[in-house]
């Protein structure tokens, strides 16, 4: 079972080294692919220093969606069985990866999402009040659109099997991709499962969303989710002949 850990990183020179070490300590056999999303700092240098990760440097900044999709393309081209999406900012805990892998290994799901809100009183960092409201709205939209409870739509801590990797390599949303990807997967009958995981608060750097941008974020994501829902189902390879 070959596992690729996709780590998108944009100007994360302060966090990336410890993130990579964390993943390495969790499992030596994971292949780590850092997607350096056109960083202007030393992210690429720091990431390739120890030789634990393959560094894929995008010549321009594409944003998280385009970066993660590059990882799916890499995993797809190199025939990985499982791809883990793992943020480079130190929010995710590598020891929790095993929990994400379990449903894939048991063939219970095609996509597994690590959730901070699956159970009440879950441990760890649970984001700010306003963000939790946003996440709640997405949960309701998911319930209406794909009839599933996804308690943490914005989580970027995910695992995908081969079938899902292949689809996402050629169809991944660009801007704020996480909630939209759920609709895309659900709409195309991929089995989605959530597992409860713990997360940390980021240490260095600032989150990409805040202030006025969050209003734009909500509107854009809700529009994108509705459009993803209204689009025709993707044709599978067999159907294309």
């Amino acid at each position, binding site marked *: 079972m070959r596992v690729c850990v996709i780590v998108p990183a944009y100007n994360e020179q302060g966090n990336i080294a410890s993130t990579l070490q964390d993943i390495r300590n969790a499992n030596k056999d994971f292949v780590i692919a850092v*997607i350096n999303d056109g960083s202007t700092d030393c992210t690429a240098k720091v990431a390739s220093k120890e030789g634990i990760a*393959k*560094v*894929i*440097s*995008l*010549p*321009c900044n*594409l944003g998280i969606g*385009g970066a993660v*999709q*590059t990882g799916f*393309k*890499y995993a797809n*081209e190199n025939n990985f069985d499982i791809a883990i999406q793992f943020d480079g900012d130190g929010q995710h805990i590598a020891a929790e990866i095993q929990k994400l892998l379990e449903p894939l290994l048991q063939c219970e799901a095609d996509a597994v999402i690590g959730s901070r809100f699956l159970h009440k009183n879950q441990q760890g960092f649970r984001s700010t009040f306003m963000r939790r409201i946003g996440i709640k709205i997405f949960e309701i939209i998911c319930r209406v659109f794909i009839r599933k409870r996804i308690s943490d739509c914005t989580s970027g801590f995910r695992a995908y099997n081969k079938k899902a990797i292949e689809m996402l390599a050629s169809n991944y949303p*660009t801007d704020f991709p996480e909630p939209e990807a759920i609709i895309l997967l659900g709409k195309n009958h991929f089995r989605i499962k959530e597992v409860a995981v713990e997360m940390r608060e980021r240490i260095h750097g600032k989150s990409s969303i805040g202030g006025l941008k969050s209003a734009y974020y909500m509107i854009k994501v809700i529009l994108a989710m509705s459009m993803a829902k209204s689009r025709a189902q993707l044709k599978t390879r067999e159907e294309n002949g």
Partner: protein
Amino acid sequence: MDKIQIYSIIGSSLFLLFIFRLIRRRELKEEYSLLWLFVASIFLILSVFRSGLEWFADLVGIHYAPAALLLILLVGVVAILIHYSKIISKLSEQNKILIQEIALLKLKISEQKNGRENE
């Protein structure tokens, strides 16, 4: 013939010629110029046949004929802008794919290089 009619015929002819010139010098691709040519032709036709504008205004129920001119202009400009948004979206998608492919190729090349050096 009114003064304004002469001016508008000259104006729209010059505009049409300007677009043709851009295409001939390959500064504007044919597929992106069609909408411009279409809008410019409509203006030329309306300047030559002035009754055409009144006929159109009457058809859509506009009492003040010059307002119909503004409507036509606005529809034309909006159509061209939407056309541009479409092109930009397509370009940014292609751009994204190119950036991703370049990054993947760069990794492949550097891995091959390292492999050869280790041999």
